[in-house]
């Protein structure tokens, strides 16, 4: 438990110049910022692609350049960018890097050089991904799940070009980056905690990032294997996933493979991936809700065990994405049961957050607003998951807009709300200045209400049976004109929400220079990252002496103390 003490007084990878300070930096804080910047930049690209999609759905034919092929390319790249290159990278590479050493009272990550490498390899994966926009026939349009056979055949955009190969190669490189970062996070959490920081005194967000990393390290290899085998199928004409195929008037040179096998590999990764994104969001909410409600988090032990249960069960629910995929139908009983069981620890998380609000002293700050919005959105998204996870209920709803509404609520809007809450909360720790509150409020309201208006109605056109991934609904008599009108409304909402994200960027830049001075601990938080000597924390984080931890991280409203919070590094006898 006292491994951190080994670093006491030792200078580590001290930067020697501008390059090693800001570019090839080994400081976890700089690496975190690099991750966040690149992830946000590629995330903006992903948002732009979604608006292109929305333009086609809301105003078909307005942009002649959006043909069916490019529509599907937008769908595919939007999905992959948002899930992997934005959210996974930002939560673990960004928040994980910034918070793990600071919250645990370490000088840096366990392996700073590998940490730096992790970012640059991630950057390379983004470059490879982006390069696919510039090859002939463009990026892959196979849908973000990249299901073979169509993903590697002509008839799908980029399927016979370089698009799909670049996509798969980029994923493989990303996984290498993630593995380097992930081993680092695990090791740091297990080995570099400050004196007194027992596992059960760690802030919940560290638990969340730790477990999400575990999930990633165990789940990503399945995707890596799938990606490599798919590249082989495409380039060397092996047939791991390819059965006999008759296409274009001839029998192709494939045979004997199974397309369903790829789906198992993909979702063995893909479902834990949902939690790789959701757990850090849970963690952010746990920190923010306790701090801004000025109350201890309710049921810490239960929260930790619920997290561990979620992380464990997350590995045995994957085939709920495949109920109607043509797998053995009896598997449906098992996967429906496990899927609904995972709802129980997830519900416990929600209960504990809302009970934390009971008899609290709630400050309606921007981070708190994001917490509350997260709770409402996550409730909707989580509850609709019970429809889709419940096998027979999934049959009419699978692959309709109900699914689009559900997963955007639960793993797009919810994590992004948590993410924004986290950015508003920790911006002062990074920059020493507060973000502008008015701009923050405007950004919050547009984002929260706007996204609800975008995704909530989608559930109902899903009930109607409108299939997702349709470039146009015109051919179908069962889809009434009112669906197109609704699509127009949703597109307008999406454009407004999209534009509102620039308020955040503007706020970021302006507050850097004009923001109110934050001081060392503007929110009155208990966790260690706010207790550093310097604000913002300097290289090595703690100056000469490492912090020592005496209590759990949620001593808000501790009886007997004058202040409404007691930081983790304050011993009992110093409480006033």
């Amino acid at each position, binding site marked *: 438990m006292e491994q951190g003490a080994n670093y006491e007084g030792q200078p580590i990878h001290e930067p020697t110049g501008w390059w090693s300070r800001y570019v090839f930096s080994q400081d976890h804080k700089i690496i975190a910022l690099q991750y966040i910047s690149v992830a946000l930049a590629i995330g903006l690209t992903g948002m732009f692609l979604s608006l292109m999609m929305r333009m086609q759905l809301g105003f078909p034919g307005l942009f002649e350049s959006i043909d069916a092929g490019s529509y599907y390319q937008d769908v595919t790249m939007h999905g992959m960018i948002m899930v992997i290159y934005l959210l996974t990278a930002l939560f673990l590479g960004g928040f994980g890097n910034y918070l793990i050493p600071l919250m645990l009272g370490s000088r840096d990550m366990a392996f700073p050089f590998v940490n730096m490498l992790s970012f640059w390899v991630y950057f390379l994966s983004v470059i490879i991904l982006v390069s696919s926009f510039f090859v002939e026939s463009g990026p892959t349009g196979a849908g973000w799940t990249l299901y073979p056979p169509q993903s590697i055949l002509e008839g799908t955009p980029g399927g016979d070009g370089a698009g799909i190969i670049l996509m798969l190669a980029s994923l493989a490189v990303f996984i290498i980056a993630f593995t380097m970062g992930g081993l680092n996070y695990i090791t740091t959490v297990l080995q570099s905690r400050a004196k007194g920081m027992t596992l059960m005194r760690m802030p919940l967000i560290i638990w969340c990032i730790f477990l999400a990393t575990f999930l990633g390290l165990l789940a990503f290899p399945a995707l890596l294997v799938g990606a490599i085998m798919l590249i082989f199928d495409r380039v060397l004409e092996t047939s791991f996933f390819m059965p006999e195929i008759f296409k274009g008037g001839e029998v192709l040179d494939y045979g004997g493979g199974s397309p369903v096998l790829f789906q198992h590999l993909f979702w063995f990764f893909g479902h834990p991936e949902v939690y790789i994104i959701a757990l850090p969001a849970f963690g952010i909410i746990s920190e923010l809700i306790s701090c801004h409600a000025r109350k201890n988090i309710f049921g810490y032990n239960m929260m930790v065990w619920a997290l561990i249960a979620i992380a464990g069960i997350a590995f045995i629910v994957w085939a709920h994405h495949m109920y109607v995929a043509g797998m053995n139908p009896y598997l449906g009983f098992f996967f429906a049961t496990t899927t609904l069981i995972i709802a129980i620890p997830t519900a416990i998380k929600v209960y504990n957050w809302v009970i934390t609000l009971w008899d609290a002293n709630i400050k309606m700050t921007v981070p708190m607003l994001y917490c509350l919005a997260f709770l409402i959105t996550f409730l909707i998204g989580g509850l609709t998951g019970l429809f889709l996870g419940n096998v*027979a209920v999934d049959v009419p709803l699978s692959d309709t807009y109900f699914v689009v509404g559900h997963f955007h609520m639960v793993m797009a809007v919810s994590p992004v709300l948590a993410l924004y809450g986290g950015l508003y909360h920790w911006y002062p720790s990074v920059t020493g200045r507060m973000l502008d509150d008015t701009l923050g409020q405007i950004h919050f309201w547009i984002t929260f209400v706007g996204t609800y208006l975008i995704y909530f109605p989608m559930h109902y056109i899903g009930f109607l049976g409108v299939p997702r991934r349709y470039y146009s609904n015109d051919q179908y008599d069962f889809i009434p004109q009112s669906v197109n009108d609704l699509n127009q409304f949703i597109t307008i909402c999406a454009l407004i929400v999209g534009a509102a994200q620039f308020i955040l960027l503007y706020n970021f830049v302006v507050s850097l220079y004009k923001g109110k001075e934050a001081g060392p601990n503007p929110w009155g938080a208990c966790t260690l990252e706010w207790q550093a000597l310097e604000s913002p924390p300097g290289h090595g984080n703690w100056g000469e002496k490492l912090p020592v931890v005496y209590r759990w991280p949620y001593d808000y409203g501790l009886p007997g103390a004058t202040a409404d919070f007691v930081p983790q590094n304050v011993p009992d006898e110093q409480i006033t």
Partner: protein
Amino acid sequence: MAFVIVATIIVIGTVLWNAVSPWWFTPLASNWGFLDTTIIISLWVCGVAFVAVSGFIIYCVIKFRYKEGHKAQYQPENTKLEVILTVVTTIGVVVLLAPGLIAWNMYIQLPDDALEVEGVGQQWVWTYRFPGEDGIYGNTNGRLFSSKNTFGIDPNDPNGQDDILIRSAEVHLPINEKVVFQLRSKDVLHDFYIPQFRAKMDLVPGQQSNLWFEPTLLGTYEVACAEYCGTGHYAMRGLITVDTREDFDAWLAEQPTFFETLNEGVEGQGKQIAQTLGCVACHSDDGVNGIGPTWKNTFGTERLLDTGETVVIDEAYIKESIVNPVAKIGSGYAPVMPAYATLSEEEIDAITDYIKTLSD
């Protein structure tokens, strides 16, 4: 306060919306009403949970707003409360799961006494096969596919000779009779989905998947592909007409058997070839451009290419566009058509003749 107002509107609006939504299930036309019931049960259970939890949040925000100098209650654990909540949630989960599993059991138990139909998917058309008088399908093999034998039936299998082939997107079914669809795909994943029947199942190349239902309402219903299958996914539309038994029998008697199609001449069969190869999924015969340009009134006209040049649509251009489609792409179209390089001269001529007949 703004949050309280907006959140209250959202919660009430979300609940009320279920009563007033203009978008709801399509009218049920099969035996799968129980699936609708499971959705309704889920809506109730989840609706109660949603209102309870959001109501609690809103109440807390009103009641426990920040007051300077006030301190929150300090209560890290309350085991009793946690146990109660866990038990209540577990009960809710069981209430949801039980009907779900029961419905699924019904869904996957294929009836023995059902009419059998084979549904075959390919980019981006549906075709069907009935086993014929002997009630046994002829063996199929992925290696036997050809533009002549688009179902890949073994020509030497006696059971296959009387198989009835439906080489168009419309299939008929008798009302109030159970039907089992044996689904397979020639190329990529597809999904056989009829919204009014609620039923849905993927088609996977290299294997068979099954789906059963019982149509309960006369009429024509649309089949929509619900598994992304390439650029033309959204255009992969089929039709199911539910007939009385007499009408169904009459319709079925008109359809050709495998034996008959084997002995069809190619000449004059351009329309049929275009249908079975899937050309019609992108090239309409009614003047409306789809993924590809329509064939109506195009023969002999000039086409603007994406290079800015123009080309006259004649026999040579049609042949080149079939054998090597990306050579000259029409302006405004994506280069997504597969090459049909193995078609015989006769087949290409037949298609060309058919395109000619579409010009007034």
